[in-house]
């Protein structure tokens, strides 16, 4: 179990990994920025010795980038990573290398993680060689590592090539290689998702045993909530580069607060629950990280979104596409001619101008959709819809990105939170408050935290 009072093994503060997008040659000449993909955007998290922290989210949520950044495998563009109090995000490759023995990774695809032309014994002993273990000592350490992961008798498994092993055996070999260097933290990136159902439990049991007997810390990256519930002490739910909810496992699973977490838990196909999946699920998929939504990144899919969640003109596309799968084809043709390419619409300071010669018809159509679908959350954010010279003017409600703040009461009691008030009033002061508040929630002793406007 985690020792809360101890110094954290890993301490991430406001960590960001942004990848620059390549623009056009002309764009670079005239000095136009081509933007960036915020794979990880301001994450604060502490990991205690012996603690297992789960990172859960869909593809593109940034969970793998976070794991890779901790090992120095992703370019950190902001914030800090401390290993036992020492800053490591700025270290050079050669200064980082000795630390890598303490921070090891288990990969998703064990077949790709092993060199096909090395036997299991050679693969482990090669890792020992790189980290300076003298040759005479290596065979004994290889044997210890293989024995530790259940690949015994060692004489039988050490001379095997990866192709001669089953998927579960290969994953055991990958874990043995990581263990041979005496790590303190293992980053396990979907270690069981490519394995057969009956083998998953065996590898998860092995990792639980390593945690208990060696006191290892884990960052467990997964999209599988069931295994996270079993294996983790704390869970961080990630969406589009940010942590949207975090807390002790029991808290997250018994009382999920963020609509995204609630949806994930509802959507798991579970053997203990025979029957149709829930009909009320978030629509669409995780958006393009190069053009993240305004406000809360989850708002275009959120069934509970309301006015200040960050509505903008391009969200109209989802509404229209949903409509066009059900209306008469003649209606579709007429309406699509009125509204070409809604996803190109720019919304500046909450105002968008939809250029069209038939402004009155567009206003009429949108008002009709609003009448027909009163529960559509998009319209809660659309405060003004009028015909304007050259098109249609749309004004959207004020919005802000929700902050990851500690949960004060059972629900919606964080409305008085000072940080929230400041953020709306004064962006600079709000930013300072945000950092202070979010740093507190990253520690193991902190209560559950959620980033959602429903809670303040």
């Amino acid at each position, binding site marked *: 179990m985690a020792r809360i009072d101890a110094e954290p093994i890993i301490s991430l503060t406001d960590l960001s990994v942004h990848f620059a997008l390549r623009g056009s040659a002309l764009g670079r000449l005239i000095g136009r920025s081509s933007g960036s993909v915020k794979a990880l955007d301001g994450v604060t998290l502490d990991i205690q010795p012996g603690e297992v922290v789960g990172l859960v989210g869909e593809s593109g949520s940034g969970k793998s980038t976070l794991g890779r950044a901790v090992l120095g495998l992703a370019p950190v563009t902001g914030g800090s990573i401390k290993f036992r109090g020492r800053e490591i995000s700025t270290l050079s490759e050669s200064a980082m290398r000795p630390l890598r023995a303490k921070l090891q990774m288990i990969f998703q695809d064990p077949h790709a993680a092993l060199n096909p032309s090395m036997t299991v014994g050679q693969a482990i002993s090669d890792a020992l060689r790189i980290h300076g273990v003298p040759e005479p000592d290596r065979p004994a350490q290889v044997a210890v590592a293989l024995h530790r992961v259940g690949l*015994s008798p060692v004489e039988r498994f050490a001379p095997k090539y990866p192709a001669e092993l089953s998927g579960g055996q290969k994953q055991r070999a990958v874990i043995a290689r990581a263990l041979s260097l005496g790590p303190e933290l293992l980053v396990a990136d979907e270690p069981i998702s490519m394995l*057969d*159902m*009956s083998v998953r*439990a065996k590898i998860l049991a092995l990792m639980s045993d390593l945690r208990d007997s060696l006191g290892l810390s884990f960052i467990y990256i997964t999209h599988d909530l069931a295994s996270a519930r079993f294996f983790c002490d704390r869970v961080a739910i990630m969406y589009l580069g940010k942590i949207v909810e975090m807390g002790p496992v029991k808290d997250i*699973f018994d009382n999920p607060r963020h609509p995204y977490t609630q*949806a994930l838990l509802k959507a798991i*196909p*579970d*053997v203990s629950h025979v029957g149709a999946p829930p009909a009320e699920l978030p629509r669409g998929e995780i958006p393009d990280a190069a053009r993240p939504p305004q406000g809360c990144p989850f708002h275009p899919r959120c069934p509970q979104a309301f006015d200040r969640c960050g509505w903008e003109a391009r969200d109209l596309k989802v509404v229209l596409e949903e409509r066009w799968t059900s209306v008469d084809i003649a209606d579709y043709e007429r309406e699509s001619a009125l509204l070409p390419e809604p996803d190109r619409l720019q919304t500046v300071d909450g105002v968008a101008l939809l250029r069209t010669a038939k402004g009155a018809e567009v206003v009429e159509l949108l008002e009709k959709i609003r009448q027909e679908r009163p529960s559509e959350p998009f319209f809660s954010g659309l405060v003004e819809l009028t015909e304007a010279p050259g098109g249609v003017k749309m004004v959207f409600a004020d919005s802000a990105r929700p902050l990851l703040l500690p949960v004060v009461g059972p629900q919606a009691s964080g409305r008085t939170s000072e940080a929230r008030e400041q953020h709306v009033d004064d962006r600079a002061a709000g930013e300072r408050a945000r950092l202070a508040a979010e740093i507190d929630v990253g520690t193991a002793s902190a209560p559950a935290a959620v980033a959602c406007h429903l809670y303040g």
Partner: protein
Amino acid sequence: MAREGSTPVFDLGEPVTTAAGPAETVLSVEDLRVWYAGAGGPIKAVDGVSFSLKRGEVLGLVGESGCGKSTLGRGLLGLTPAGASMDGHIRFGGRDLVTAGRKVWPQVRGSGLGMIFQEPMTRLDPLMRISDHFREAIGSHERMGRKAADRRALETLRSLGIPPSRYKNYPHEFSGGMRQRIMIALALALQPAFVVADEPTTALDVLVEAQIINILAAIRTTFSPAMLLITHNLGIVGQACDRVAVMYAGRIVEHGTVAEVFQDPQHPYTRELLSATISLTTTELRTIPGAPPDLGDPPPGCRFHPRCPNAMAVCADKSPLISELPGGRRAECHLLQWDSLSAVERADLVRERVLVADEA
């Protein structure tokens, strides 16, 4: 084909398949065997499988990797590789597809038998617009003008949640979930009477997977094909299937309605598989020792006996018979024939311990 439960916007034209009553059997498989040539003799990937499917009925096929699930699915569509041999009966549309010869397959595929693949990105041609995919698929199986084909395609896409505004897009312009919807639409546009869906949600995220399962549930009443849903995820079977067949080493060892099989499994393999599944209610990890056998040299007697917690002396010796249980349930286990066993046969089986690492 009658489309209960939905109001079609267009008349889809005369259905290709013969009109079938709600309870009519669409496909009936009897004692099917699919064997591959292996270095040390035949590999019996499917070894005596029987089941039948009615219109609109979904049968889940589960089991570990290497139990013959995908080979069975492909065999039913005649998609086995050259050199494989097939034996038994597949009765479909008044014909026996196994004995009718290789030429019959292209005639029944598409409009009669459909397939939904996993990994939609590799199955859609990146240089072809979605519209071209549909024109090609519909045009190569049916005599239909381009306008009519487009109408059919658009209607099918719309019923799966793809708006007509995306019809001329290329595959890369869609998200993973949308591509999987397009794959399903490509199979359903030909209105097949029987569809094999091989792991249709494996590469998808949790929420998108749930959307696709909802779609599979919806097509049971709209397109109502008989469907074989191959998956390793027992949770999906619970959500999307009427019945479930548990496959082990080339044979269906248990078969019944999903609720019955999940609540009261009769075969030890089903029981072990269910308890080894990690779910939200898991508090203790349970595992099945060992791995599925080499299908070129399966163990004698019951093929599960080396891994079975309930194995008896008879299990290593004789193959179990199929026990017919109430409600059309079937299972293949000596425990169900307990009364006919002698005391010697009932004795606990003495085995070598399975090593921790001898696993799949």
